[in-house]
């Protein structure tokens, strides 16, 4: 098959010292970022975006992919050891993982997490390699109306279906789209919302927005809370991670089940790995009750940890594939990766496979290499990562803000950009303070221009007839799915608020 030979070419290119170096750097950075609670791979990729100006695209994306996956390997470490997941994708792993650690089986837990992440990522990447031609073919059937429908689906799924508060999610989304409108309008050449500030003619730089909201915003948020919430970190590291053959055999089906949950979600804009990891956990829990498993929920069941870990990485693998083949970001981190592509003037999608095929296949080959590297460093260096958790938070966050300032100034040498950075950092703080989700804003900024262009293109073709937006089978399917998802979400929220009111009433009595 064509894919295998392309993949082999990718390997030849990926196994050069330069690219291998970036695999290792990305893997190490990603794991470090994942291990430390309060940082996330989306923040790390955002902070690394300025570097892309100095690197060639292949090396940069290899590093980003390493960071992306590395975050998913490292995030369970703090969760297992400290009951504090490094990222929200590890929450589901923390339930049983920490129980295992308390039961004295931290080494087994860490090994289960690392191997599970490896298996999930491996299977997902293999799926991407073999199915990418189909995805690309599917993408060629997309016209402006279809892309607009997908963008709307991504918007509403991330801002409403999966987020805690629909209204706040929509608010964030719309602010994001509004930010993306600043600058010169592509189709017509009109200046929009630039207030005659020359630096704004090109729009607000996406790097400034992501770094401002994610990195600077986080530092401001931490500043407002650090003296109130003592952020304690007392990790007991216990030797390298290892597991017995019996444990391996117990975990294997759970790993595979987790992967089965995770892989499809990479295709759906559901915001990332949280939904599939929770689904995988729920399934293992149900299976455990049926099996009358004594460990689950008490001393820590290995399956309860294995499945979510595999699910998270499987989602990341297929999400990367969806990004490459369709140009559709399915989570905030994927959206930032999309922005990185755009920085290089590349547009992911069918054309990417045609025009920059060697970059794509080198990237896919390095994913395999990266997974092996990540498995090795997470198994063998587990104590070192645990020690990382002892970095004092004041140094960590001071360092983050330095890197943020540096990144932005280095790419634009513009004080205006630094001021916008600070302002967006404050907005990021406000959003965290008032529970307004940030992912929809990022999706709005990154997909907003695409959505607007496709909408205007579609309407131009149909000469103003809005029905073109719902006339093809693909658009109808997408909108139907969206409607169903919205209905299910509303039902869920209603059910829970009714249950809460009931509980409050009984408690008041």
């Amino acid at each position, binding site marked *: 098959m064509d894919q295998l030979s392309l993949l082999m070419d990718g390997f030849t290119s990926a196994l050069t010292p330069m690219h291998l170096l970036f695999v290792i750097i990305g893997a190490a950075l990603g794991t470090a970022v994942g291990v430390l609670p309060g940082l996330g791979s989306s923040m790390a990729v955002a902070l690394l975006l300025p570097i892309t100006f*100095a690197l060639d695209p292949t090396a940069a994306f290899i590093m980003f992919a390493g960071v992306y996956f590395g975050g998913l390997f490292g995030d369970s470490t703090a969760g297992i050891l400290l*009951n504090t*997941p490094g990222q*929200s994708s590890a929450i589901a792993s923390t*339930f049983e993982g920490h129980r295992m650690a308390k039961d004295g089986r931290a080494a087994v837990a860490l090994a289960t997490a690392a191997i599970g992440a490896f298996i999930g990522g491996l299977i997902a990447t293999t799926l991407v390699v073999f199915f990418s031609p189909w995805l690309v073919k599917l993408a060629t059937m997309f016209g402006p109306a279809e892309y607009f429908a997908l963008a709307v689906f991504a918007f509403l799924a991330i801002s409403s*279906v*999966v987020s*805690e*508060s629909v*209204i*706040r999610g*929509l*608010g964030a989304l*719309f602010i994001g*789209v*509004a930010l993306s*409108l600043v600058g010169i309008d592509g189709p*017509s050449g009109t*200046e929009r919302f630039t207030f005659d500030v020359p630096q704004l003619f090109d729009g607000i730089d996406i790097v400034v927005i992501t770094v401002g909201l994610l990195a600077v915003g986080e530092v*401001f948020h931490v*500043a*407002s809370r*650090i003296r*109130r919430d003592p952020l304690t970190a007392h990790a007991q590291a216990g030797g390298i991670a290892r597991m017995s053959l019996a444990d391996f055999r117990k975990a294997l089906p759970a790993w595979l089940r987790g992967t089965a949950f995770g892989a499809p979600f990479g295709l759906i804009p559901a915001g990332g790995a*949280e*939904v599939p990891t*929770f689904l995988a*956990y729920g399934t293992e829990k149900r299976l455990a009750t049926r099996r009358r498993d004594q460990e689950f*929920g008490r001393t820590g069941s290995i399956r309860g940890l294995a499945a979510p870990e595999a699910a998270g990485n499987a989602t990341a693998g297929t999400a990367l594939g969806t990004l490459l083949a369709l140009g559709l970001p399915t989570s905030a981190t994927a959206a930032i990766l999309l922005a990185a592509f755009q920085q290089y003037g590349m547009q992911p999608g069918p054309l990417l496979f045609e025009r920059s095929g060697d970059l794509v296949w080198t990237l896919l080959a390095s994913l395999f290499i990266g997974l092996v590297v990540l498995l090795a460093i997470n198994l063998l260096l587990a104590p070192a990562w645990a020690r990382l958790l002892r970095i004092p*938070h*004041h*140094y960590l966050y*001071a360092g983050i*803000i*330095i*890197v943020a*300032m540096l990144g932005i*100034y*280095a*790419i634009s040498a513009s*004080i205006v950009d*630094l001021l916008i950075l*600070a302002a967006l*950092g404050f907005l990021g*703080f406000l959003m965290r*303070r008032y*529970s*307004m*989700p*940030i992912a929809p804003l990022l999706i709005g900024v990154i997909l907003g221009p695409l959505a607007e262009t496709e909408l205007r293109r579609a*309407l*131009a073709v149909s000469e103003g007839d809005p029905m073109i937006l719902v006339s093809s089978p693909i658009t109808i399917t997408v909108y139907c799915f969206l409607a169903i998802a919205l209905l299910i*979400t509303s039902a*869920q*929220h209603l059910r829970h608020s009714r*249950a*809460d009111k009931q*509980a*409050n009433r009984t*408690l008041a009595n």
Partner: protein
Amino acid sequence: MTSENGTTNWRTFVHRRSELIMPLILVVVAAVLGIGSLRMRVLGDTVPGPQFVPLMLAVLILAVAICLTIVVIRQPELPAHELSRLTKAEFSHDMLHDFAELSPAADSTMNTSSAARSRAPATDASPRSSTHSVNAARPSSETDAPSAQQPRFHSDWVTLLGVIAAVLGFIIILNPLGWILSAAALFWVVARLLGSRRPALDIGVALLVSSIVQLTFGGLLGLALPAGFIGGL
């Protein structure tokens, strides 16, 4: 609405609804979009033109702002989920709760909305939920019984404004003083504000960090950083 003191009530009312700044921001954005679109000097003759999406967006944002205002006034502050520290409102707790079939009180790392709402703020069982607030314990000036028990997310404005001032200060001194000194100063101030107890050691750490960053980014990757007056020496 029982109250011993009329002004305390009003102040608490507004305090607990400080989230109203968000709809305010939304309204400002909508206004900028709307006024900007109407005053736009349109070039070309694309149909629909460059004003179409901004105007539509302005209307949508106004709608969201109104809904959010109503939501905030009716229910101040979302319940203090354990999850929210990590997911930060990105993910629906109800949905995740359903998927994972979590029982309300059993798990120590999560609390459901009902458990959180009914918990009195001072007697927090879970070790990681440390968002206590003095104000929430005020007895008679609360309007609705369940939400009176919610802990509030107090922000430490002193530290926050200190960090913001440090950032703005950095922006001002960056060009005259150059990267190494400005970044070191920023690092030192922020570390101090965030709780570092070794100011003398920090000076060394700060200079080290900013020099390393200058070397890696400037030297290895060839990104230009301002040298300030040191560069001229």
